[in-house]
């Protein structure tokens, strides 16, 4: 059936607000009587806080109050309650908030921050996660055993291990014995910043009646509300969380952030609203960033390229706290090699505390880290065996309806197909065909591919709901709690409403301030789940709406409800299109000519919860971890300047089996945006620390993110549409999978270009050049010769 709105390239609903500057972010908000907060942060990576003296600071005109850790004895966190509101007795990283100043103006608060005297007793720090695992390592969370934690997590008290997860299927040692070739390699990924342009910003007002109102730049209003209630002992219903426009999230604004501190400061400051906004520097040093990873991967394969065993040890550097990172490391563990059909797999994945900035979720959630290690390993197996990189992947990827995943799940027939993605990408970059001649003799061109997948990492009982209200004029209010921070999910949801109700999409109204009091519940806006979970809730709500409309219309037209259809803002009798009632005459109740009325205001309600997910076996990690898998493949053509080590992506192609592109324009933006972010992380991004644990590059000059000039010359987006029978119109999520395959595809292309394996990110010129020198000194010799020849030619002339 032809669709009117499904599959159409509609611009984002809120485009007008964004291009005119009327889109209001928390950054822009001011409330009457609002105060400003600033943080006093630790200058030691690990120390006891022996004394905080705020007496001088309190004398600054305009200062209202100053709080320290002892004022707020609460523990925060989503999966493990390992965070304090302000450092209670010890600090765990340089940048750990120790005190907060609240003042009438930001200037006064800033002035007072400098006058707060903190006395520290330095403790021995540990920066390297491998060292943090040693038995005599300094303990960063001595009270780890006392923290609240969700059932799926196993911190190891008395150590720095925040979580340990094991995936075990088959027998890897036997698999290695049966292999013709076995390789083992190490990989490293640095801490990276989400670098969302709007820094974390929160306004909170604790009111005298015990209620709390929050305005915050967060992804998930309901998670903020629930976790605040849980941590501070406030009834959930006493808290209202409002989320206006959000200037980027990328996972870094999931869960809970500064809302509890800001609310408690408001109470301490006499119930006035307080705003806390991080500076860019604070965002790098006091806010949470993406974990660093050390990984060791061992793979065994038969001569023909069949993978027999894959074994991994992933050590996630969680930094000073890792309330969310425990689940990042768990997700990396259960998804280890999951795009492949592996008879034997083992992965131990640890989240380990160190005295560095804390970490949290970021787009891809553990998958980019694991995919980097696995896809580089598979590439090295392929070159070791002399099997083509595309062929080895096609041979080993899971087949829908046939394969069993690494967690022991028999894949459904409609699970999506990674082979289709690989084929599409290979064709688009002319895999196996010649590469273009580089512009200079010291430049080399290569092609690379990668394959991967991801499903939402969410608790099995993560639920969604939707409310659809019909208004007097036949317009429709769509009330869903899912986030609207650039992904376009809500735009796609309004398309679904318009399609199903047969009304113009302009008549579907969505309010951009998402409040816990005005929207239907959804667990979180994370994990690429929104379109699928909230979309299913919306579809159920639409069925409810249609049923109610038809019930009234069937009485009016004196026919059975099933004989009616709703389209073009009317209810028709099937087969007799001249008999109809306008929707507007039904939505608030139908009135007969004599005044008798039936029906009443129509409000539809829908919900979604997965009946299929399970907790994973604590010993083996087996079970059903997720609601769907989105498979994808990345292909790219790169140019490596062997003289400087600079890598430039010339062409980028990504293909995803997303089931159905509800809005191909939103899909295009996700695919290209994901490639650019993945490329930026792969080539440029690394938070560096000095030997004292201080972040060296907390700004956008020293921490480079991709700019317009850095993007590939050509970018292609391919949607494969093998529908998921229980997805809305067959759709699967797309938000994160778009950046997973980019770093390994680039590294694989670099290998193809110059025969040098890069296993540590980022691949910035210095690292590439060092690896060339180490792995292929003959390449530099050859270049020297080439350069000499060129010079001689010039001299002769």
């Amino acid at each position, binding site marked *: 059936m032809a669709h009117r709105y499904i599959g159409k390239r509609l611009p984002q609903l809120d*485009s007008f607000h964004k291009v005119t500057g009327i889109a209001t972010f928390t950054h822009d908000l001011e409330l009457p009587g609002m105060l400003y907060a600033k943080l006093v942060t630790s200058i030691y990576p690990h120390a006891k806080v022996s004394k905080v003296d705020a007496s001088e600071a309190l004398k600054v005109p305009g200062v209202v109050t100053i709080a320290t850790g002892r004022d707020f004895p609460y523990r925060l966190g989503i999966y493990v309650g390992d965070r304090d509101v302000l450092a209670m007795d010890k600090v765990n990283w340089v940048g750990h908030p120790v005190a907060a100043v609240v003042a009438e103006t930001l200037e006064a608060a800033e002035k007072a921050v400098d006058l707060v005297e903190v006395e520290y007793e330095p403790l021995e720090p540990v920066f390297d996660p491998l060292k943090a695992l040693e038995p005599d390592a300094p303990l960063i969370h001595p009270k780890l055993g006392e923290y609240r934690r969700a059932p799926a997590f196993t911190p190891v008290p008395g150590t720095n291990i925040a979580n340990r997860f094991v995936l075990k299927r088959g027998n890897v040692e036997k698999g290695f014995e049966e292999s013709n070739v076995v390789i083992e390699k190490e990989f490293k990924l640095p801490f990276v910043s989400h670098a969302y342009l709007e820094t974390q910003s929160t306004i909170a007002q604790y009111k005298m009646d015990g209620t709390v109102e929050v305005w915050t730049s967060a992804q998930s209003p309901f998670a903020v509300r629930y976790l605040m209630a849980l941590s501070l002992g406030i009834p959930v219903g006493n808290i209202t969380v409002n989320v206006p426009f959000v200037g980027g999230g990328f996972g870094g604004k999931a869960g809970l952030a500064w809302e509890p501190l800001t609310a408690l400061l408001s109470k301490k400051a006499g119930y006035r609203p307080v705003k806390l906004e991080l500076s860019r520097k604070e965002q790098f040093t006091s806010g949470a960033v993406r974990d660093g990873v050390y990984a060791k991967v061992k793979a065994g394969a038969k001569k023909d390229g069949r993978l027999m065993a894959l074994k991994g040890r992933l050590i996630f550097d969680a930094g000073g706290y890792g309330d969310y990172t425990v689940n990042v490391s768990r997700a990396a563990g259960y998804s280890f090699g999951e795009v492949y059909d592996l008879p034997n797999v083992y992965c131990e994945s640890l989240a380990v505390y160190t005295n560095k900035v804390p970490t949290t979720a970021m787009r891809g959630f553990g998958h980019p880290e694991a995919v980097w290690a696995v896809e580089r390993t598979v590439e090295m197996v392929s070159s070791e065996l002399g099997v083509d990189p595309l062929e080895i992947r096609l041979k080993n990827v899971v087949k829908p309806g046939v394969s069993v995943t690494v967690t022991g799940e028999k894949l459904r027939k409609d699970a999506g197909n990674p082979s289709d993605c690989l084929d599409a990408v290979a064709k688009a970059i002319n895999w196996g065909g010649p590469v273009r001649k580089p512009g200079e003799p010291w430049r080399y061109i290569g092609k690379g591919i990668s394959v991967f997948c991801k499903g939402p990492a969410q608790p099995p009982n993560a639920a969604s709901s939707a409310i659809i209200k019909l208004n007097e004029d036949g317009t429709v209010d769509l009330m869903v709690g899912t986030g609207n921070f650039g992904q376009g999910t809500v735009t796609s949801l309004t398309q679904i409403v318009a399609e199903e109700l047969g009304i113009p999409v302009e008549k579907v109204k969505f309010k951009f301030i998402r409040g816990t009091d005005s929207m239907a519940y959804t667990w979180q806006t994370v994990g690429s789940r929104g379109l699928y979970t909230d979309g299913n809730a919306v579809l159920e709500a639409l069925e409810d709406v249609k049923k109610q409309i038809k019930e009234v219309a069937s009485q009016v037209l004196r026919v059975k409800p099933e004989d009616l259809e709703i389209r073009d803002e009317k209810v028709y009798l099937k087969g007799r299109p001249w008999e109809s009632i306008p929707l507007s005459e039904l939505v608030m109740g139908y009135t007969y000519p004599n005044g008798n009325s039936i029906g009443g205001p129509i409000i539809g309600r829908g919900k979604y919860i997965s009946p299929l997910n399970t907790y994973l076996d604590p010993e083996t990690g087996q079970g059903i971890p997720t609601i769907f898998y989105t498979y994808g493949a990345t292909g790219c053509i790169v140019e490596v300047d062997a003289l400087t080590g600079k890598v430039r992506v010339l062409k980028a192609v990504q293909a995803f089996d997303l089931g159905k592109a509800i809005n191909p324009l939103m899909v295009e933006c996700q695919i290209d945006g994901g490639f650019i972010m993945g490329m930026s992380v792969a080539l440029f991004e690394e938070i560096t620390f000095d030997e004292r644990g201080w972040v060296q590059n907390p700004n956008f000059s020293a921490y480079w993110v991709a700019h317009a*000039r850095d993007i590939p010359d050509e970018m292609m987006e391919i949607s494969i549409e093998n529908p998921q029978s229980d997805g809305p119109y067959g759709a699967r999520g797309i938000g994160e999978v778009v950046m997973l395959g980019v770093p390994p595809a680039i590294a694989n292309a670099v290998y193809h270009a110059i025969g040098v394996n890069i296993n540590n990110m980022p691949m910035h010129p210095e690292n590439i050049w060092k690896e060339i020198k180490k792995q292929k000194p003959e390449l530099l010799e050859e270049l020297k010769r080439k350069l000499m020849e060129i010079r001689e030619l010039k001299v002769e002339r």
Partner: protein
Amino acid sequence: MARNITLIVNGVKREVEIEDNELLLDVLREKLKVKSVKAACWRGECGACTILLNGEPVKSCIVLAAEADGSEITTVEGLIKDGELSPIQRAFIENGALQCGFCTPAFTLFCHYILSTRPDITEEELREELSGIICRCGTYKQIIRAVMQAKKHYKK
């Protein structure tokens, strides 16, 4: 030291008391409440606070308000004439040249400036010109497409 300055913001004359060391960005956002101008790095690196100062693009976080006394300032609100969006704003919408929207006022305004002054700009030149503003969502391809599409409206 406090002093009074005059700024003509989107055609409206406004007087404001400032401190000598105050940034133009802070005066616009905090005193004149022009909130489409965003602050995200405070160091002239991200470009989210880009405005036109006497017709030329500047990053308002690295301009002192005192320097701007008597100047004409254009922000994205100034692109709307008689309630109608400018061609570049329409092109941004049609081409999906925005995601989270935080950098959008700066990019829209800057692209308007580029097309007004260099309507024949090539795609390659444009990539270079656009590299003063960060879009972390990575919408560069769509922004470039929007500019190329809107070109025809800016040619004399």
